[in-house]
């Protein structure tokens, strides 16, 4: 399998502060679902921001075998913790179609793809609604749909289960489970990762303290306790 994301010796610190991320190295392969788990303040979101080139870090990050650039980022979909940061159009349909039309897709084809993606997320009936009129769970799924509409090869999700109730969480899990793209999910929600990811990295104080198959890793209670996850 081909790696879609390669990170080597990544380090990052905010100005004159102690290092937030230290010596992070890992790979994500095509179609793989990888979890990044860690307590609040462990550096999960910062790591995602570094991967996207939004924060300038030391070390090497390669997306699809090349350096992080506009071209490589066009193949990445991102789901932010707060869906309001992503969805701002008067309707979900517009939120999904306009980036596609701007990339040169004819309007009808763009609408078709947007509707297909919304259907995949169980939101086809809400296509003409604005994100502000949806529940938080629906908004989360809508932001995933917005990220997926561009047919990304890698999907990065930051705390996808934050503030969701059990039912919305199950729906989100179902939606994420069936996706054919590589996924990186950063969360502190251990149970969510147990069911959805195949491999997990445990991040604690800006370091990867453990890495391995999700079920094995998350069965290790002493490790989880040490990392502040239980």
């Amino acid at each position: 399998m081909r790696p879609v994301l390669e990170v080597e010796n990544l380090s990052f610190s905010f100005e004159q502060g102690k290092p937030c991320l230290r010596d992070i190295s890992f790979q994500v392969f095509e179609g793989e679902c990888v979890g990044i788990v860690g307590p609040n303040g462990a550096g999960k979101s910062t790591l995602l921001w570094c991967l996207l080139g939004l924060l300038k870090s030391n070390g090497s990050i390669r997306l699809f075998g090349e350096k992080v650039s506009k071209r490589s980022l066009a193949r990445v979909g991102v789901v932010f913790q707060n869906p309001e940061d992503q969805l701002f159009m008067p309707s979900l349909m517009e939120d999904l179609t306009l980036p596609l039309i701007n990339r040169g897709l004819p309007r009808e084809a763009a609408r078709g793809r947007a509707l297909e993606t919304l259907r995949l997320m169980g939101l086809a009936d809400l296509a003409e609604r604005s994100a502000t009129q949806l529940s938080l769970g629906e908004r989360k799924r809508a932001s995933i749909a917005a990220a997926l509409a561009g047919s990304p090869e890698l999907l990065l999700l930051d705390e996808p289960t934050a503030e969701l109730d059990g039912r919305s969480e199950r729906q989100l899990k179902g939606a994420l489970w069936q996706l054919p793209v590589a996924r990186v999910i950063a969360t502190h929600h251990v149970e969510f990762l147990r069911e959805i990811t195949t491999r997990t990295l445990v991040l604690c104080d800006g370091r990867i303290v453990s890495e391995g198959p999700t079920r094995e890793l998350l069965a290790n209670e002493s490790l989880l306790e040490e990392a502040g996850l239980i």
Partner: protein
Amino acid sequence: MRFARYTAACCLLGAAVGVAFVNAPVWLLRAVLLGFLLRAMLWSGLGRAVRAALPVLVFAAALVFVQWVSRSPLTLLPLKVVAVFLFTTVAFRILPWASLASCARPGSLLQTLVLFALFVRHFAHIFTGEGLRMFRARALCISKPCGRGAFHSLVWALAAFFSRSIVRAERFYAAQWLRGWAE
């Protein structure tokens, strides 16, 4: 109906630009009055319309105060600020946003303007939400609006409001940049 809304919104935006060049206080006062009347119609009641415009009224009052304290001649700027705000917000409310987003050709100047307006509208929504949350939190931690610690907590609420707004703006920009919108 859509055409009528577009026309009315364009007239109001034109009026908002126009009042910036008016130098007759009487006409500016009339414009402010008209703005409040329009808002009262749309915001269902004059009281709600005035309450919703309170931050801008406070800002205008602060401008007058600063001019008075510095002993510089009082200008018409505060009145212009209020009038422009009133006309713009009414125009924003009546614009048919849903059809506006899809009518512009990709890459055209119109699309850039529409997207800019949509960004502003969305961020105003975020800004309002953050402000309400912050000031509600402040109201919960003081006994009286003007009592002990009221000023201190107001300063901290304002500071927190600005820092939260910057964080939200940063995240919003990052999300849109990744979607290829920000350029």
